[in-house]
């Protein structure tokens, strides 16, 4: 039964990849199509409102700069609101202004699509902050990532000087993708009993006669974009494990699909841009293969439970239910865990800290790779970066200088790719090591032994991959953690983004190389294998020593 639940979700995803990918392609191909009739007028109104007269393409520099400036403006706006939320409207529960380092962390966390939450929503944010900062950034950061992915794809498949207009992509991502789908999912969630209200926290008298405070609010709206935008920051501290965020197995499936479908269909969109759908399927298959390996691992590990407990004669037939919700059980929890870290959403419906060590390795590894579907757009860009690497390493073996989609991969591209592959391990391993060297870092670790290593590693990996899920054991709301994870999130988001946009800008200008029988093909099963191999050897081996000391050592100690 458990496997069937998982298979149904997988089947839905596979079936929807094509229609959704095609839709996304039509949104961003900038060729006239039917959807213009529905959204065109509204978009033109927005363009007029923001004074966007020139919607011609931008060079990668201009695109990147526009993106950064837009994000900086949003950061300033959000920071001001959080620091002054006491004086803002819609604060029925009387929340105080947010502390400095926590605001720093929170703003970065949301603008980078990470949604690492060192705060707890029900005790730290006013409804206005939830809506004007948190939800606003959930939309904008997702749209930013999506725009980057589209611009990157345009760069590697197009020809000319420009990779698209950021403002136009950014607006269209909202009007044609995130807003319509958020409305739809919100309504579905409301129909399935998720609260959506501006009323203050309910105070009720229980049957025993004691008073209980039940936090509510505009939950459904946040919940929908939280997943659609692969954001992950929950309305409540308990995130999607909370019964108001995720009341039933059905809402659980809706949330899984919400976060998974767009990243899963982007490879298909890429295939359409490349005018060769097989290119897209190769990328999709590589992602799906890695995903299935991870999903199987976590499902099996959780089902098997804790061998040390079994050795004590405790019945393990239920699997490891610690930290999981009974209404989801092992299959829905394992699937949610695998998807939320694959798509770098970071919402959780079970506590990853209490996963079995091997089960906990899965979310960690998916974030370390950051290519298994990946967050809004970023996953595809990362996977294509590995494709470029794979082409570069293996392309030579056909006796030609490496080329990807008819474009020669030369020193300039390799330098930029080198920056992108270097930054990820650097911002995970270096702060992890520093945390263990300092008392400030060590002080927050709540577990001795390998599990403590996993906690720290998880926190920085989650920040670097802009995932945002927490291992939660860590006492992370301290200035030290707020600031270090804040910096890691920033670097993790923008450095690789800019580097990859530069790659796109460089490739778009290249003279196309004709394809012959002597060309290294990137649309067949052989390249699918090369892609997976490159991800595993370059991406995964880097983290092996750290993982061996964390989850693997812990698992081995359990027997």
């Amino acid at each position, binding site marked *: 039964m458990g496997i069937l639940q998982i298979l149904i979700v997988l089947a839905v995803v596979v079936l929807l990849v094509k229609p959704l990918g095609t839709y996304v392609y039509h949104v961003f191909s900038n060729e006239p199509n039917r959807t213009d009739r529905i959204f065109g007028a509204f978009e033109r109104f927005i363009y007029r409102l923001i004074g966007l007269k020139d919607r011609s393409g931008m060079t990668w520099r201009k695109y990147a700069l526009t993106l950064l400036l837009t994000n900086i403006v949003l950061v300033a706006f959000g920071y001001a609101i959080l620091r002054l939320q006491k004086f803002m409207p819609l604060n029925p529960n009387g929340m105080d202004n947010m502390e400095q380092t926590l605001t720093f962390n929170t703003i970065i966390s949301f603008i980078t699509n990470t949604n690492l939450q060192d705060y707890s929503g029900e005790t730290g944010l006013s409804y206005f902050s939830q809506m004007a900062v948190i939800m606003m950034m959930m939309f904008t950061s997702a749209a930013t990532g999506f725009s980057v992915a589209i611009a990157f794809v345009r760069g590697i498949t197009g020809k000319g000087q420009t990779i698209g207009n950021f403002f136009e992509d950014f607006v269209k991502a909202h009007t044609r993708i995130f807003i319509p789908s958020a409305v739809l999912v919100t309504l579905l969630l409301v129909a399935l009993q998720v609260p959506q209200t501006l009323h203050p926290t309910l105070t009720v008298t229980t049957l025993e006669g004691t008073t209980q405070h039940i936090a509510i609010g505009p939950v459904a709206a946040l919940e929908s974009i939280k997943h659609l935008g692969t954001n992950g920051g929950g309305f409540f501290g308990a995130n999607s494990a909370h019964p108001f965020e995720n009341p039933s197995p059905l809402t659980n499936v809706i949330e899984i699909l919400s976060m998974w479908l767009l990243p899963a269909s982007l490879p298909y969109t890429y295939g359409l841009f490349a005018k060769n759908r097989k290119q897209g399927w190769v990328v999709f298959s590589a992602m799906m293969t890695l995903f299935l390996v991870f999903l199987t691992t976590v499902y099996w590990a959780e089902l098997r439970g804790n061998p040390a407990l079994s050795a004590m004669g405790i019945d393990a037939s239920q699997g490891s239910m610690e930290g999981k919700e009974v209404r989801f059980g092992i299959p829905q929890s394992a699937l949610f865990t695998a998807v939320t870290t694959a798509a770098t959403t970071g919402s959780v419906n079970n506590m990853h800290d209490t996963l079995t060590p091997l089960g906990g390795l899965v979310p960690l590894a998916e974030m370390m790779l950051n290519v298994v579907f990946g967050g809004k757009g970023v996953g595809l860009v990362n996977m294509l970066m590995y494709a470029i690497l794979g082409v570069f390493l293996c392309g030579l073996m056909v*006796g030609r200088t490496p080329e990807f989609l008819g474009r020669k991969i030369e020193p300039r591209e390799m330098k930029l790719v080198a920056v992108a592959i270097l930054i990820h*391990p650097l911002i995970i391993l270096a702060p992890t090591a520093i945390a263990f060297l300092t008392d400030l870092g060590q002080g927050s670790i709540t577990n001795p032994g390998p599990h403590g290593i996993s906690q720290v590693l998880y926190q920085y990996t989650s920040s670097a991959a802009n995932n945002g899920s927490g291992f939660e054991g860590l006492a992370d709301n301290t200035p030290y953690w707020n600031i270090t994870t804040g910096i890691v999130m920033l670097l993790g988001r923008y450095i690789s983004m800019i580097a990859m946009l530069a790659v796109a800008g460089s490739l778009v200008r290249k003279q196309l*190389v004709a394809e012959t029988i002597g060309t290294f093909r990137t649309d067949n099963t052989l390249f699918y294998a090369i892609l997976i191999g490159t991800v595993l050897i370059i991406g995964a081996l880097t983290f092996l*020593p750290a993982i061996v000391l964390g989850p693997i050592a812990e698992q081995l100690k359990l027997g």
Partner: protein
Amino acid sequence: MSNQRKSMLTSAIVNRAIRDSLIKLNPIGMMKNPVMFVTYAGTFVVLLMILFPGYFKATDDFGFNMTVFFILLFTLLFANFAEALAEGRGKAQADTLKKTKKETTANKMVGGAIKVVPSTELRKGDTVVVSQGEMIPGDGEVIEGLASVDESAITGESAPVIKEAGGDFSSVTGGTRVVSDRIVVRISTDPGESFLDRMISLVEGAKRQKTPNELALNTLLTSLTLIFLIVVVTLGPIAGYLNVELKVPVLIALLVCLIPTTIGGLLSAIGIAGMDRVTQFNVLAVSGKAVEAAGDINTMILDKTGTITYGNRMASEFIPTGGVSLETVAEWAAVSSVHDETPEGRSVIELMKKQSLRYDESIADGAEFIEFKAETRMSGVDLKDGRKVRKGAVDAVKKWVAAQGGTIPADLDARSDSIAREGGTPLAVAVGNRIFGLIYLKDTVKPGMRERFDQLRQMGIKTIMCTGDNPLTAATIAREAGVDDFIAESKPEDKIAVIRREQAEGKLVAMTGDGTNDAPALAQADVGLAMNSGTVAAKEAANMVDLDSDPSKIIEVVSIGKQLLMTRGALTTFSIANDIAKYFAIIPAMFILAIPEMKVLNVMGLGSPESAILSALIFNAIIIPLLIPIAMKGVAYKPMSASRLLRRNLVIYGLGGVIVPFIGIKLIDLIVHLWI
């Protein structure tokens, strides 16, 4: 191909390489190679720990550290040795060339008089006189006279070549010797820029520029090195949390094993050896980039004459006329040619053999041979019995027969016209006043060309034949040779147009040429191979010069280019794939004392932690010399489609790269574990 192909390795080259590999330990040189420099720095740190064990609290590990130090040192030496060995052959060759370049004197013409000056004082535009036995003092063009020149110093070809003023055989190279006659040469280069100078610097590889692909690969290798540096540096503090103490030499061992030392150590050797293979093949490439571009070629433009066909016309068919039998016409054709030593004449006899036709050789005994003359346009024999046998241009033979009162067979004109239409040359065969038939002379395709073009097609390379022939003739030869496309009645401008058209489609084009009017096309092409016998302009426009002046060599040059790229790719893949096994050797060994459960990860069942680390390190070192032969000779390459090539190389070097170190490390461990 040159008959002077040097032997692969001599003990002198090896000895010199051993010496050079020590000299190359100079840190400034090492810094150019980031991968090996990190190894170098690691070696130095371990050396310090050996020299000052007290300071580093490493007294207990003296033996282990010593071993690590020597393995690391040998890793460096092996890498240096590979590079030195690759450079060795070029250096040896450069030395020989430098001897050729020794100071010569020149008879410079000043006004009307001749002044003897050292050759180094010659400037562009000077005129010199070179007489029999003298060395030509510099590159230039013959402006007066004709002489045979011995170019063996440069081409290795001992037979002298004729150089004469005007035309395509006017260019001479400094350092070659006039063996007969006397010529006046206008010098075309300033000192230091001559062909010989360029050749020396090329084979020496001293100022070798890294190609774009090498630079890109170097960037990647550097970033991998940095990544592993991060991994290893951060490992200490992380492991410290579990109270696992990691000793510095162990971390250095892990680092050196993980960074791509194999390819890092062999990369420049692969590049130099690739260039060297081209040079050994008697082709001079101006840069490594040109050789790599050869590997990328999509389209090859080939001259018909000399490249695809022999250029001289050969008998391919006997055609009887006037109702005589085939045997008859063949017999008289043979009789007319039996004393004829021209290629045409010999080809007639060969065609007889090929068609198993016989004739009575005794007929021609004692016959008098009549040579071909421009006036008569016929040759043949006068037999002892008084009969005259002639073969020659159809109208000449017709006139000759008519003069003797003979009649012309009615079908002769029709037959000879159809031969001409197909691009062949008809020769009429007559005895006395009777014409027996025709010999069909045809330009013949060199043997093996069809197979080569098939191979090129499999490699994804399109071939275009250029010829001055009419379209019909061109089509016939094109079909016969199996080229993909042809340009008939082509003029030099046509070649440029084709190159531009192909390049606009994103294709890289290779071509050969020798004449001055080929120069623009040679410059436009991505790979232009000029013939050494060609003009200076052609040689300067091209990025490769074939010293043997064999245009069909362009095909092999492409193979060499591909092989160079493949070797680089294969060894990179191999090197990176090796990491998996090294991880499985070292990681458990590092942690097993603190976390005994780690023994599960010791999949190779290595004897002890120390022996595991040393074995991985030893494997890492010795794989470099073991791969030197592949780096030098290049990976085995047969023309086939990219997909098949990739599958094959992936299995050998990718999968092999994963599996080989598991076996290698295990075997080394079996020995090392005898001690620790």
